């Protein structure tokens, strides 16, 4: 469903993604880990063209992401994205945050979009916040709204970039629970996160990145128990012993 073929990306002279080969299948949950600055966010952001690749080939559903003929807005409506800092629209209510894209992009009527939005708010556990503004919500609630906003477009893929890193510890669980439920329903997910519990429970595959390369990948149980690469071992010992 998502396919990287010898993909390289540079920021100026800085080689941020090095010869990435990666295939992610429908329904798969892939967790990306690695040290800060290793290129995890960039990898994720290339998939919906928030960043453009320098060479190689990247396809989503066999559509070339960077081809001029590809309608990028058409592609993006099919790929949800959840950010570390939520990026909810502060001037819009929770309901409006969720319905904006369905109304503008999918041309849903306001009533229809609001019905869908409420059902997803129910799903992420905060139906009573429909008319609140983002600033009135806790971080955990904001992130759950952001997930509902992504879901309302009925995407086939959702990308998560450190969705719990900006949250207070007591709110991490509520967001992970929503993500786990999604994973179990068969959503295709690419998740940058260091939450090992999440990875062990629902990930099909762990990808370890370092300095722009995919150094190692494997099933969570194998990878966490016995990482092959020295740098993966070092990294794991560091996130485990902090």
């Amino acid at each position, binding site marked *: 469903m998502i396919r990287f073929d010898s993909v390289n990306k540079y920021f100026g002279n800085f080689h941020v993604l090095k010869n990435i080969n990666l295939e992610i299948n429908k329904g798969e949950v892939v967790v990306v880990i690695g040290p800060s600055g290793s290129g995890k966010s960039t990898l994720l952001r290339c998939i919906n063209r928030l960043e453009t690749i320098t060479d190689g080939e990247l396809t989503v559903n066999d559509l070339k992401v960077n081809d001029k003929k590809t309608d990028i807005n*058409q592609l993006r409506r099919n790929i949800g*994205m959840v950010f570390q800092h939520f990026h*909810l629209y502060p001037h819009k209510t929770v309901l409006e945050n969720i319905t904006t894209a369905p109304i*503008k992009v999918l041309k849903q009527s306001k009533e229809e979009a609001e019905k869908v939005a409420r059902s997803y708010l129910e799903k992420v556990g905060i139906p009573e916040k429909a008319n609140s503004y983002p600033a009135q919500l806790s971080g955990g609630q904001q992130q759950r709204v952001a997930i509902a906003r992504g879901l309302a477009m009925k995407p086939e893929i959702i990308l998560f970039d450190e969705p719990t890193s900006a949250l207070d510890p007591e709110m991490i669980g509520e967001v992970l629970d929503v993500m786990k439920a999604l994973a179990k329903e068969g959503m295709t997910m690419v998740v940058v996160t260091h939450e090992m519990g999440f990875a062990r429970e629902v990930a099909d595959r762990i990808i370890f990145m370092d300095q722009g390369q995919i150094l190692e990948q494997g099933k969570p149980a194998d990878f966490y128990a016995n990482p092959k690469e020295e740098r993966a071992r070092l990294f794991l010992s560091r996130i485990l012993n902090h």
Partner: protein
Amino acid sequence: MLDFSILLNNLDTYLEGFKNTVLASIIALLGSFIIGVIVAVMRIAPIKPLNWIGSAYVEFIRNIPLLVIAFFFYYGLPAIGVTLPAFVAGTIALAIYTASFIAEAIRAGIQSVPKGQMEAARSSGLTYLQTMRTIILPQAIKIVIPPIGNQFINLVKNSAILGMIAGLDLMYFGDLVSSRTFVTFPVYIFVAMFYLVLTIPLSLGVGYLERRLARSN
């Protein structure tokens, strides 16, 4: 004491000037706003040549004295066969000059909206224009209104430039009264008062909006 007979005896003249100053201000205000928005969009649109044109406009225009721009339109253009009435030349100069400051204020406001807002909206499939209209501009407007209000106040005051090219405005008729009556000091005091009639309400309005916008955040 101030000799009010100067004002009363020349009230028609003053009012004629006042009327033209108001007219020039309103036209230039609308014009500068429209040009300002266009130039601001050119500066931030993801199209390099447009960025250059927008930047060039701002950097050139705001670093030239308004008087020079006004003289260009009034005395300069006839050289290439375009003769404009002083009022028109002055008003155009005023709009073009103020637009460069308004464009800057709008650009700064738009760019103060966090980058994540654009990314969140675009990644949900909204086009660049849809994102601008529904997500970015409504947030930028709050930041942009106070500086634009201040530019409008400047515009009203700067409209006195019309007096330099016989533009029939308040300043021009003030000069006229002064040369007719051989009185200077009170004549210009009254001119100043007419300007204050325009600028003080504007200034109060900007202050009010600023406080309201501050509270709504």
